[in-house]
């Protein structure tokens, strides 16, 4: 399911990031690698604050929909 639908505070593993563009690569560099564990800290109408690799990253809903967990 897309990360945007994940429950707050639950550990999730990234299966895949869909699409093929610069933004996906930028996400890789920020630590969103496949197989990585992520936790949603805050959900603001689909816009998320996510914990990944000890960093706190804010992403919007469109982006969160592309991260499958």
């Amino acid at each position, binding site marked *: 399911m897309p990360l945007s639908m994940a429950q707050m505070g639950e550990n999730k593993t990234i299966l895949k990031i869909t699409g093929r563009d610069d933004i996906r690569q930028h996400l890789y560099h920020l630590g969103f690698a496949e197989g990585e564990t992520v936790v949603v800290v805050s959900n603001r109408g689909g816009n998320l604050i996510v914990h990944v690799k000890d960093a*706190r990253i804010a992403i919007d809903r469109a982006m969160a929909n592309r991260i499958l967990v």
Partner: protein
Amino acid sequence: MSIKIALAGNPNSGKTTLFNALTGANQFVGNWPGVTVEKKEGRLKGHSDVTIVDLPGVYSLSPYTLEEVVARNFLLGETPDVILNIIDGTNLERNLYLTTQLMELGIPMLLAVNMMDIVEKNGDSMDLKKLSSAIGCPVFAVSALKGRGIKQAAEKAVSLAGTAAPKPPAFSAQTETYLSVIKERLQGHVPPQQFRFYAVKLFERDDKLTGNLPNVSDIITKAEEKTKEDAESIITNERYDFITSVLRGTVKKKNRYALSVSDRIDRVVTNRILALPIFAVVMFFVYFLSVTTVGTWATDWANDGLFGDGFSLLGLWVPGIPVLIENALTAMHTADWLQSLILDGIVAGVGAVLGFVPQMLVLFLLLAILEACGYMARIAFIMDRIFRRFGLSGKSFIPMLIGTGCGVPGVMASRTIENDRDRKMTIMTTTFIPCSAKLPIIALIAGAIFGGAWWVAPSAYFVGIAAIVISGIILKKTRMFSGDPAPFVMELPAYHIPTVSNVLRSMWERGWSFIKKAGTIILLSTIFIWFTSNFGFTEDGFGMVDDLSDGLLSMIGRGFAWLFAPLGWGDWKSAVAAITGLVAKENVVGTFGILYGFAEVAEDGSEIWQSLAAAYSAPAAYSFLVFNLLCAPCFAAMGAIRREMNSARWTWFALGYQTVFAYLTALCINQFGSLFLYGSFGFGTVAAILVLAGGIYLLCRPYRQSQTLHTPRSVQRI
């Protein structure tokens, strides 16, 4: 021999703090990704031949935003002697991702692991010796903030110059085979020490590499068919595998996902319901404090006391500066014209501007606190949903917020915006927000015409925001800007309490540059205005005139003042004031000070207000205010726009758009205001109705479809 050491690392890892500690510089340290958008150089303390270069933070050497290009260009093009890779110890894994790329540049390197105190406080442990041997370069634990360990790290960095570069991280045997084929093809194309870097980048299909490079698409296709993965992912996975192997046995973590204090604060401030009200309260507090309360007390004292009649200090009457100067000049029996130049020109003009220094300092202080505590990045996140509705991303809000201090850094802060269209739109609209130099204009109009009404200052910010929103919608519907803004992705730093020295330093630096501006450009402008307004052609030939309206400036002003007649202020004084505002916005008030005789009425500072009030109707005054808030900014900000647009055509388009937008808005305000208040109807009213109708059409027409789903990259080729 001179040595160049580059500070490289992730955004917000403490590079600028370290830079300040190493060089004794005073760069402001903000707590959000993208504070440093341009590289800065300084000399290492105690080593006159060692230069330290502070680079903008990057997550990788495949640049995603413009400021990342600055860092990559420097590392590749100017090849520093040593790289000091600063690493946030609380986020080792992600920070090492960049390290794996820096190791490929063929430059000697050392690691400085920052924020070790926090790592220890979290109960984690790190074996830096093991880390050093696994990576193959020296590792130091430092605390950039407390200055611990930085001296040893810097000495080591100096000694590394000219030594061997670290061995690049080894990938799997299969990937290495592909890379070695590419390396063979690179012979003669790039310097040998950069073979590894270019081989990996070519394999990743980095589209921003330029120069005469071999075609390697056959190798990439072969690799992708074999692994069923795209080349970018292959390399990313190799890097993370390498990091995992490095960290094995090096780091012991206690408890990874405990909710930190920052997370708890975020739960509240980014809460679905509370986020916007909290933001509104914070902003109201900032501007209320600086514009209306604390700032005004201080400014009143400065204007009426220091630059006015005088003030009472512990029961002792201290005369104001104009009084002192006047007494001194009279005592020295200076010539009348010189006395007039100094009192009516310089003191009136520069004094009118300097009087606002206390207000600015309060605003700068509050903005610095906002930037340093970590809330800035959250504001971008909160505003993203709203800004997206009119075609901007939440990241556009940071330039605007910084722009409330000064438009120049505001425009420069737009570099963190990834998408070229979003960035251009942000540059065009950032200066709509009233900057600190426009505060005097607001205060003057509010005080003189509207009797100090409380709503004038907030309404100026509201006008600025409305102009941004309306422009966003209108521009987004043109072909040039159609398409969705780039998706929002931004790292949120941990909150921390700002250090007093950092905040005061920022306040002082910005305040000082304001004072310097008053002493240079505004001083020159006031002398120019005094001269041209007091001299002119009379019956006796060229000479000093008794009445300013006989002066040269009046003649010139009358030449174009008619342009502003439909806006309600077609007199030459206002026209000249608006034009001098293009040099620096403070000039508007300074010019009024000279033309309405600020110094002569110094016994009662508000007398200029009475003469102004007599010259303006309420709608005309507000129209004047709005025009000056929205039109093309000062020279310095225009220069910043030119630099960031990097195109003369776009610069003129931006400035033209701002000025036309300002003119039409001011026209509507004056015409509709006069119609409703005084019932005056005329040709101008018809024009305003047409403008309004046109504006509504531009706002309501449908969005154009973007031709491509792919968003163009903003970064320039290197």
